């Protein structure tokens, strides 16, 4: 049975598989999973169907930003989906894809097999990251494109009312909607980085799989707390909120850019940590000993350090130690939005057009009926808006109750007079239409 090799043969050195081949291999594995296929299908179909269905209803999701405009323009539906995606869909998607891409090999017991086939842990890591990133981008693109298509088909391509009440042309709306979706890729990448880190650190433990979703949930909780702006901006999920600033005029870019930079830094740092931990892993040992301690040392501590460093840098570079919400900002924001929306209402009622300058709207706001210091979030803000009525020396006044959240977003609810903001609908020459001054959403720039 035994043969001999008398003449020494040259044995070729086995070369590692290239990153491109590893990437295709990982992509094939990911796409072959029913879970991933269902996610792709859901992301490319469900948003469009949802937007189209909601746009046919009389009851709109007014609690969600831009929800009240879903009957008016097809672009609003995509922004409603974007708001929902930042809260739930994107953290869950990144959990299921990035949080599992390394852990799956632990679960299936295929690490050794993969190492023998690829012969380079570095290339395995890069291939896995790129493949899971591709799937995540495809999912996000599906959410964006599907929701836009659903909205445009169901409602149409009309101008969009911005967060300060000004009207965005259809082209401008399209550009800003696309930009908003691009912006949320940054925090999505940060969550993906956390997912890769958890997947590498925790192996087959379910904690690795759900880590991005848990982190996103914790970040959302933090955003609901009355934290200083510097802390708020230093958290990697802030860009899930700060895209709102794109829909103001001028755009509130500072919080958005800071949020994106912080998210990208988180993405890089957590991915780098995952890379280091992955390369140090001993694949000949079947068990992951000391995973809990290692998770704290290699994962939690550096990221906590990153938060602290980010807070310090942001606090030094910007005026951001307070809540970012004060009386002057609220008054300016409410007055601006009112003036824009008043023009909109004027147009609906077929009255002669007026300009914001002619209206000269101002707002006088207080908190807690004037008994509280007018700073910070709360649902006890009350504003009296005054404006010059066109062609008369009289001053018009309207009252709004504001529910202002710590991230600067508010909903202004009209509290009279009824001719201005008392009714949900206004009678126009072509029938009833939603009254833009009845309730409106706005956004206070925390770094203004």
């Amino acid at each position: 049975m035994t043969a001999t090799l008398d003449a020494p043969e040259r044995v070729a050195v086995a070369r590692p598989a290239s990153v491109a081949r590893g990437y295709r291999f990982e992509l094939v594995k990911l796409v072959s999973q029913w879970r991933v296929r269902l996610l792709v299908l859901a992301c490319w179909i469900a948003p469009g169907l949802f937007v189209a269905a909601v746009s046919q209803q009389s009851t709109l999701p007014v609690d969600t930003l831009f929800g009240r405009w879903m009957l008016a323009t097809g672009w609003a539906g995509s922004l409603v989906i974007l708001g929902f995606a930042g809260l739930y869909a994107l953290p869950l998607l990144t959990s299921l894809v990035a949080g599992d891409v390394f852990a799956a090999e632990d679960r299936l017991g295929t690490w050794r097999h993969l190492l023998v086939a690829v012969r380079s842990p570095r290339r395995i890591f890069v291939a896995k990251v790129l493949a899971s990133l591709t799937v995540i981008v495809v999912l996000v693109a599906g959410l964006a494109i599907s929701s836009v298509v659903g909205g445009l088909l169901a409602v149409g391509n009309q101008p969009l009312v911005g967060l300060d009440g000004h009207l965005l042309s259809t082209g401008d709306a399209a550009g800003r909607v696309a930009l908003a979706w691009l912006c949320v890729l940054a925090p999505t990448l940060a969550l993906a980085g956390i997912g890769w880190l958890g997947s590498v650190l925790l192996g087959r433990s379910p904690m690795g799989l759900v880590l991005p979703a848990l982190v996103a949930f914790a970040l959302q909780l933090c955003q609901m707390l009355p934290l200083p702006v510097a802390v708020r901006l230093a958290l990697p999920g802030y860009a899930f909120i700060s895209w709102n600033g794109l829909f103001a005029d001028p755009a509130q870019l500072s919080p958005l850019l800071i949020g994106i930079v912080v998210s990208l830094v988180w993405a890089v740092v957590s991915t780098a940590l995952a890379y280091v931990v992955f390369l140090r892993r001993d694949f000949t040992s079947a068990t992951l000993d000391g995973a809990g301690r290692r998770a704290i040392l290699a994962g939690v501590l550096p990221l906590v350090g990153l938060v602290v460093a980010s807070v310090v840098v942001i606090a030094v570079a910007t005026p951001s130690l307070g809540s970012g919400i004060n009386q002057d900002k609220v008054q300016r924001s409410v007055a601006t939005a009112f003036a824009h929306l008043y023009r909109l209402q004027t147009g609906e009622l077929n009255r002669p057009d007026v300009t914001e300058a002619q209206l000269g709207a101002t707002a006088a706001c207080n908190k807690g009926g004037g008994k509280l210091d007018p700073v910070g979030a709360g649902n006890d803000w009350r504003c009296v808006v005054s404006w010059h009525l066109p062609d008369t020396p009289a001053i018009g006044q309207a009252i709004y109750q504001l529910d202002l959240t710590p991230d600067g977003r508010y909903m202004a609810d009209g509290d009279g007079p009824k001719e201005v903001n008392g009714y949900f609908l206004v009678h126009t020459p072509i029938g009833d239409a939603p009254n833009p001054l009845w309730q409106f959403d706005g956004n206070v720039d925390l770094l203004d």
Partner: protein
Amino acid sequence: MARLAVRAREITKCFGEVVALDGVDLDVAPGQIHGLVGPNGAGKTTLLGLLLGLAVADSGSLEILGTPIRRALDAPEGVAGFVDGPGLYPSLTARQNLAALVALRGPGAPTAGIDEVLDEVGLTDVADDRAGGFSLGMRQRLGLAAALLNKPRLLVLDEPANGLDPTGARHVHRVLTRLAADGTSIVLSSHRMDDVESLCSEVTILATGRVAFSGPLSKLAAENRELDYRVITSDPPKARAIAAGITGLALAGDEDVLVVRTLVPALDELVIQLVRDGIAIRELAPVVSPLEAAFLNLTDQQEDDR
């Protein structure tokens, strides 16, 4: 002089404070099927992992197919196999699993045909079924097929017969025997002594990270101490009486089945006397195989030494 497929000298490998391999020597000739046996935790999987290049030894030297291994994942072309299961992706079909591996290796690497290896391991009929629905035995065979894709010159297999039914086991044996006949060296670990005995020409017994024995099976039998043999005869009482009179024979068993513990010379003496007295020998076989007995003896002894 024939170059060895595996030449390991004084290999030591530790995981923290645990010494997995302690001064292990191993020689595997080209075309040889070499068995690796030992109790759980003996270091078999670690040694197989080193042969596959998954890790590098802490000390000692290891040459695979004439290439010194100095770094992890530095094994030369022509080394294939699996440790700790065949490592397959359940969401892919058998054919897709193999096709993905072929694509991963790239166009320049020597690769056997997918249909060819599926046929060789007897999985052609289920080639387009998802591996997730395969039995353990089918997964083992698919893992073997994946290894065969590389046209291996050294095949490293961890428990290849695990989960195989007798037909599957025979199929795998045929494949391994054919590979060895073609010059492929095979190192396999197994807890099934009958597999090792029927397949392997040489065996290495590991116990607590050390080599308790390494060499041909025949040498193992010759070096071995007393074995238990079951002797079924036409006249059990008389056979028992004869056995009792032979020096170096210990008796056991019941009235119908005689079991003797002895060395080969005393067993020969018993057979001669039974035949001389006209007693028919209907069965004479070791209660446990020589390899298993040796395995138990050697490993027990090493445990005692510790």
